[in-house]
C-alpha cells in the first residue's frame, strides 16, 4: 500500500486492513499442508473457476453497498439474464453476438429498474424494493423458460465459462481480474467513481454539493445488473445450460464477500480488492472443506462463523482506531 504523500505509513493499520488477505493466506497454507490435492494446478484452476461467478456478482454488490444500499435481487437477475439467452437459442437465434448483447442488455435493464424503483418511486430502502424485484425477476425467469433448463449454447458463448488461457488459467478468472481492475480505476480515478463514495458517505452533503444523487444511484444499480449479466454469461458457458433456478444463494454469498472484505454496511467505505479477497476466501474455504470431506452442512456453519469473525475483527479494529484517535487528541 502506498501513501499518497509517500511518508508515514502506519504498519499496524496496513496489517489490520490486510486482515482478510492474511486469513486467505493462512487458510491456504493450512489446506496445502493438510491435504495433498489443494496445491495442485488442477485444484487452483478449479478454485478460480468456482470463484469467478460469485466474484463478478460481488463486484456489483460492492458498489451498491458503497452507496449505503443493498441489492437482494442479484441472484434473480443472474438467472433472468441467463434465461433470456436460453430462450433465444430455443427460438433458433444462435448468433453469439446477439446472445451476449441480449444477456447484458436484460441484466443491465433490470438493474436499472431497481434504481428507478429506489429513486423515482422513492421506496424507503432498497432492501424492500429489491426483495420485491428478487421475486419478480425470478418469476420472470421461470415464466419465459416454462420452468425448465435450456441447453445447447454456441461455442463462442460458452468460451467465457469454459475456456483456458496459458497455464490453465480459466478465461472466467481473467474476466474477473480485468473487471476488478476496471472497477478499481472507475471508483478511484473517475469523477463518477468518487461521487459514489461521496453519496455513500453522506447523501445529503453530496446532494447539497450539487451532485445528482439519484442519477448516481440509478447508474450504480444498473452496473450491478450488468455485473450479474456477466456472471450469467460465465454460468451458462460453464454448464452449457440456462437454469431458471440458478443463483438462489448468490445474493448472500455476494454480500458476505463484501463484508468479509471490509466494505462498510453504512456506505462510503470499502475497496474492490477487499471484495475479491472476501470472495476468494469463501471459495477456498468451500473447496478446502470439500477436500477434507466435510459435509455441506458443516460448510454452512464454517462460512457463517467466518462472516461473524470477519465483522467482529472489523469492529475491534474500528474501536482501536477510535481509541488511538482519542489518545492522539489528548496529547
Amino acid at each position: 500500500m502506498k501513501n499518497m504523500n509517500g511518508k508515514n505509513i502506519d504498519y499496524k493499520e496496513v496489517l489490520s486492513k490486510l486482515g482478510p488477505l492474511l486469513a486467505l493466506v493462512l487458510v491456504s497454507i493450512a489446506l496445502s499442508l493438510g491435504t495433498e490435492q489443494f496445491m495442485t494446478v488442477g485444484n487452483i484452476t478449479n478454485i478460480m473457476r468456482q470463484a469467478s461467478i460469485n466474484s463478478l456478482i460481488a463486484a456489483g454488490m460492492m458498489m451498491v453497498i458503497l452507496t449505503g444500499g443493498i441489492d437482494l435481487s442479484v441472484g434473480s437477475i443472474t438467472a433472468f439474464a441467463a434465461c433470456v439467452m436460453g430462450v433465444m437459442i430455443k427460438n433458433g437465434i444462435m448468433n453469439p453476438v446477439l446472445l451476449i448483447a441480449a444477456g447484458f442488455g436484460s441484466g443491465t435493464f433490470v438493474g436499472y429498474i431497481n434504481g428507478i424503483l429506489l429513486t423515482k418511486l422513492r421506496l424507503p430502502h432498497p432492501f424492500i424494493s429489491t426483495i420485491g424485484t428478487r421475486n419478480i425477476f425470478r418469476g420472470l425467469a421461470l415464466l419465459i423458460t416454462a420452468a425448465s433448463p435450456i441447453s445447447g449454447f454456441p461455442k463462442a458463448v460458452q468460451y467465457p465459462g469454459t475456456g483456458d488461457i496459458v497455464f490453465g488459467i480459466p478465461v472466467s478468472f481473467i474476466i474477473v481480474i480485468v473487471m476488478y481492475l476496471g472497477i478499481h480505476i472507475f471508483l478511484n480515478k473517475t469523477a463518477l467513481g468518487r461521487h459514489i463514495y461521496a453519496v455513500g458517505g453522506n447523501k445529503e452533503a453530496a446532494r447539497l454539493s450539487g451532485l445528482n444523487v439519484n442519477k448516481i444511484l440509478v447508474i450504480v444499480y444498473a452496473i450491478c445488473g450488468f455485473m450479474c449479466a456477466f456472471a450469467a454469461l460465465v454460468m451458462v458457458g460453464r454448464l452449457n445450460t440456462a437454469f431458471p433456478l440458478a443463483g438462489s444463494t448468490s445474493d448472500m454469498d455476494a454480500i458476505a464477500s463484501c463484508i468479509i472484505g471490509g466494505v462498510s454496511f453504512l456506505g462510503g467505505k470499502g475497496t474492490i480488492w477487499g471484495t475479491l479477497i472476501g470472495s476468494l476466501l469463501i471459495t477456498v474455504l468451500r473447496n478446502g472443506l470439500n477436500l477434507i470431506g466435510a459435509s455441506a452442512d458443516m460448510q454452512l456453519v464454517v462460512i457463517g462463523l467466518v462472516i461473524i469473525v470477519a465483522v467482529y475483527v472489523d469492529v475491534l479494529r474500528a474501536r482501536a482506531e477510535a481509541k488511538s484517535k482519542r489518545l492522539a487528541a489528548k496529547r
Partner: protein
Amino acid sequence: MTQPFIKLENITKKFPGVVALNNVSLDLFQGEIHGLIGENGAGKSTFIKILTGVHTPEKGKLILKGNPIKIENTKHAIDLEIGCIYQELNNIPQLSVTDNIFLGCQLKKRSGLLDYETMHKKARELLKDLGQDIDPTLPIEKLGMGHQQMVEIVKAITKDIKLLIMDEPTSSLSETEVNELVKAVRKLKSRGVGILFVSHKLEEIFELCDKVTVFRDGQHVITGPVTDFTNDLLIHNMVGREITQQFPKIEFKKGEEILRVENFTRYGVYQKINFSLSRGEILGFSGLVGAGRTELIRGIFGADPIDEGKLYLNGKEENIYSPEVAVRNRFALLTEDRKTQGLVLGASILSNLIITCLWKFKKGLFLDDSKIGKAVDHNIKSLQIKTPGPDTLAEQLSGGNQQKVVVGKWLNSDAEIYIFDEPTRGIDVGAKVEVYNLMNKILEQGKAIIMISSELTEILGMSDRVLVMRNGSITAEIKRGNKQFNQEDIMHASWDDSAI
C-alpha cells in the same frame, strides 16, 4: 411572600468557548406564570436544561422548597415534580393518546393485563378538565399540533408536576389553538402549578404571564411583574450585547444585480419573499430561530421545492429545481450544520475539497491525481487549514478548520453567489475572523454573499444590508449606515410585528 417552589442561586454553566449562563438567580413560584425571553443564545435553553437535569451547573445552588438539591437527570426532575414540554414534542406518534399519557405508568388489571377501560376513561376526564374534547383512543399522529400539546400537558398532570416548563409552546400553533392553550395554562395555574413560559412572542407574554424575566448573553437582566413593562422596554432589555469582537469588514463598491427573488412562497413556511442581491455585497438575514430563513435559502438553492415564486439570475429567469441545477448556476450553499449536510465526515479533506469540481480535473476519461494534489495543497495553504495532510479525515478536524474546508470546496466550484447559513457557529474567535476575511475575498472578486446569522453582532459587523424575517415574512430591510442599522431596531423587527 410565600416560599418559592424552586430557587436558583448564582447558576453558572460553561461550554467550551462560551459561558452559557453567568451567575443567574431566579425564583419560581407555584401558581404563577413566569415568562422568560431573550435573544437567540441568551441562555434560555441552557436554563431549561438545568431545571430538567440535562445539564449540571458548574457553580450555584438549586433550592427546592427550602432544601438544596441536585437534579441528576430528566427522570429525577420529574420525580421532583418538574416537567417540561419541549418545542419538539416528545410523543410516540403511532400510539394512542391514552398510551402516550400513561407511558411508563400504565394501569393494570388484577390479571396483569392493561386496564384500557379505566385508562381511556381517565384520559378523557383529564382532557375534559382542560376543556378539551379529544378521543383518547386515537393515535396521536391523527391530532393537530394544538391537541398534541394538550396531551403533553395532561401527561405532565398525571405525573403531579408542580413546575411546568413550556419551551415556545405556541410556535407551531394556529390562533385558535393558541387561545385554547392559553385557557389550559390558566387552568393549570389555578390548580397551583407554576409555569415557566418561554416564548418569542411578546403579545403572549403580556396576555398570559404574571412575571417576566429577560436574559441576555447568559446573564439575568431583569425580572418584574409584566404590568411594569412595555414592548419597548422588554426589547430594550434584550439588546445591548457589547461588540467585543472586531469585524474586518471591507465595504466594496456594489456592482449590478446578480440575483432577484420574487414572491417566493412555500406554504406554511415562508411567503411572498422579495429581495435582490448585488455583486460585492453581503446581504444579512436576521431573525429568530424558526423564522424561516434557513428554509427560504434551501428553497432558493433547490434543496426543497417551492410552491410559488420566480428567481432571476443576472436579470434572466431561471428555474432552480435541484441543488445540482443551483451549483451549475454558480450557487454555493454553506449549510448551518456542517457535519450532517456540509461534509462527508468519513472522507478525506482532499475528497471533500474536490467534490464540487471534479470535472476540472478530468484528463480524458480519468482524473488527474497530480493536478488534484496540487490544487488541494494550494487550498490548504491559502485557507490556512491546520491539518497533517490532505488525507486526514474531515471528522478529525476542529470546527473552524472543517468550516474552512466547506468554504474551500465552494471556492473551488467557482460559485458566484455564496449562501452562508450561520457561518461561524461553533468555531472559535480566531477562526471566525479568518472566515470573515474569506468573505471579503469573495466580495473582492465581484461575487455576492447571503449570510444568515443569529448573532446580531455578526449581522451588524459584516452585512451591507439586513433583511429581518419573522414568521416566514420579511419585516424590515435596513441598509448599513442607516439610522436603524442597530441592534435595537433589528430586534424590534424580529420580535414585534407592529414595530416597523
